[in-house]
């Protein structure tokens, strides 16, 4: 994928991510990629998100690894300390569980613990998302763990242009960024990103203007919120939809401005509601806009349960458009 054709026609999210990595590697020799199956002899990953990169930039810069997530993140950290900007893939978010020490005790803390002498400019790409019938160990959303970890940034795009722009910013960023890709929406098409375009970290995007209720969401659930617009409109509810894009640090300013306007807030995400990212946003907004809220802040996430395999259960697990519409409408009653 070259700069010219990314501009030409709508692209899929996974193409945008691929293009962002390719463009960053073109611009900066320090950008390198590692992870399981990421090189082209291994087909550029199980889904092919890194396809073409090793053919173009060489297997020295795009390295497939053993199944050793601690070693992957450790290698990324070490190389980042001496001038490289590694993009490390942890194939699925549930597999971050075997690399938490490297991420939390090391990547996130080295800048602070060294008194600013060193820093860890790495991007950790990981994918997740329910809807693929993969059961309890392959599609958790664990972003609140990382948002709770001082020193980490957490990003989750919902469309190709943001995916490109956030990836470029994540690579530019001097600190570790967890980049969450939503597997079931990889093939979602959207406007092609401008080559070189950056979406700043920490800035939310008002995806749709509205006046009655603010819906804050991100990643795949943001698309569900957009899909709920018709039903909300039909019920006479004008929703403002805020795509958080960066989960940590999150854009309090944009969210507060929107809720100040609408007076109501619904937060929707695929993670388990309890102790999820919605809790932090709800707590902050409830406190900051104590006298301005017209209704209690509402949260819609997954139930307190692992992801089930059986299709009807899996379908009922994460918030969908219908549930979002229902929650938003009932908030406005």
């Amino acid at each position, binding site marked *: 994928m070259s700069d010219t054709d990314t501009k030409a026609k709508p692209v899929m999210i996974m193409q945008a991510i691929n293009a962002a990595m390719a463009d960053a590697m073109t611009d900066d020799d320090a950008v390198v990629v590692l992870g399981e199956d990421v090189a082209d002899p291994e087909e550029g990953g199980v889904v092919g998100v890194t396809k073409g990169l090793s053919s173009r930039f060489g297997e020295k810069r795009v390295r497939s690894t*053993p*199944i050793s997530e601690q070693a992957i993140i450790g290698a990324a950290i070490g190389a980042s300390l001496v001038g490289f900007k590694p993009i490390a893939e942890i194939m699925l978010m549930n597999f971050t569980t075997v690399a938490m020490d490297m991420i939390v005790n090391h990547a996130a803390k080295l800048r602070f613990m060294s008194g600013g002498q060193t820093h860890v400019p790495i991007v950790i790409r990981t994918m997740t998302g329910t809807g693929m019938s993969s059961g309890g160990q392959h599609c958790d959303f664990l972003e609140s763990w990382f948002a709770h970890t001082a020193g980490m940034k957490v990003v989750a795009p919902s469309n190709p242009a943001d995916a490109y722009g956030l990836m470029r910013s994540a690579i530019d960023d001097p600190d570790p960024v967890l980049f969450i890709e939503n597997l079931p929406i990889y093939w979602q098409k959207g406007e092609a990103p401008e080559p070189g375009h950056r979406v700043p970290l920490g800035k939310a995007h008002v995806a749709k203007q509205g006046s009655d209720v603010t819906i804050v969401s991100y990643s795949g659930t943001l698309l569900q919120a957009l899909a709920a617009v018709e039903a909300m409109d039909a019920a006479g509810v004008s929703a403002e939809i805020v795509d958080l894009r960066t989960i940590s640090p999150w854009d309090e300013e944009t969210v507060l401005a929107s809720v100040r306007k609408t007076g109501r807030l619904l937060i929707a995400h695929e993670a388990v509601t309890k102790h999820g990212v919605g809790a932090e946003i709800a707590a902050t907004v409830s406190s900051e806009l104590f006298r301005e809220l017209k209704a209690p802040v509402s949260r819609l996430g997954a139930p307190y349960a692992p992801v089930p*395999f059986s299709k*009807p259960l899996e379908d009922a697990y994460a918030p969908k458009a219908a549930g979002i519409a229902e929650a938003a409408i009932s908030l406005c009653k």
Partner: protein
Amino acid sequence: MTGNDVLGAEIQLDIYRRAALLKANDERSRKVITTGRLVMPYYSYRGQEIIPSALCANLTDDDYLVTIYRGIHDMLAKGMPLKKLWAEIAGRVDGTCKGKGGPMHLTYPARGIMVTTGIVGSSMPIANGLAWGAQMAENSRVAVATFGDGASNIGAFHESLNLAAVWKLPVIFVCQNNHYAEHTTYEKATAARQISDRGHGYQMPGVRVDGNDPTAMYHAAREAVERARAGEGPTLIEAMTFRFHGHVFGDADGYMDKAQKAEAIANDPVPRFRQKLIEDGIASEDELAAIEADVARQIDEAVDFALASAFPEISELTTDVYGAMA
């Protein structure tokens, strides 16, 4: 009995019965998926049938198994009932796990199938725990962890082998080396000349065996089981085999060496074993055909049963999270 002794006819037929079931079940699974009757990520084990068939001929229902996403062959060899298996992978309420686990998380304690994990390497630490339980209970059960070649590079492998050796646990680590970890070859990911070499670092017997050879595999498993039951500790078995399909069924397996794959398929271990049974006069063509027909009928029944079974109630979404609190 030494590693080369010819197996008795009964044992050979026992192994073949399992292998025939496994092979037919894989073929049916792929067909059911291809025809769209079921949707699931399916990790074909075609080509690896002999390993669990010969292994499980040495185990009882009381022995424990922890297997992985590519583990339906292991479970079937260990005695997983077909109907419950199929209902589970169809996400139905009559499945072993009421449809909540699915193909990567099948569990069936009545046959010692204690955990199926989708996390690479994680079968081993848990198998240690089962073996530790058996050791404390002094019930002479053994625990088996199966895993792939790629899994031998993850931290849990190392911690598990060391703990098992230090504690002399009755556990058997069965590495099914099928040359590939997803799309990555053994050579590109693994520094060891062979995985069995790693046993040395734990003073643990490390045995490499042709996992496609029922006799060799049976003997290797037998020795390991005897050692475990005798309280002499763990064994690492590296069973050489080959995966006939891509990592997950449906992937374009362009990363696989065509010639190597063609050769492996030409040497398909199950028909090879079948052929040998006839040549050695262990069984007649008719007898084997009867076994296969029986297997086919059982699978037919299981598929029908599964597809006729109901989906779980939506209320199951939040049950089985906690038990009754103390």
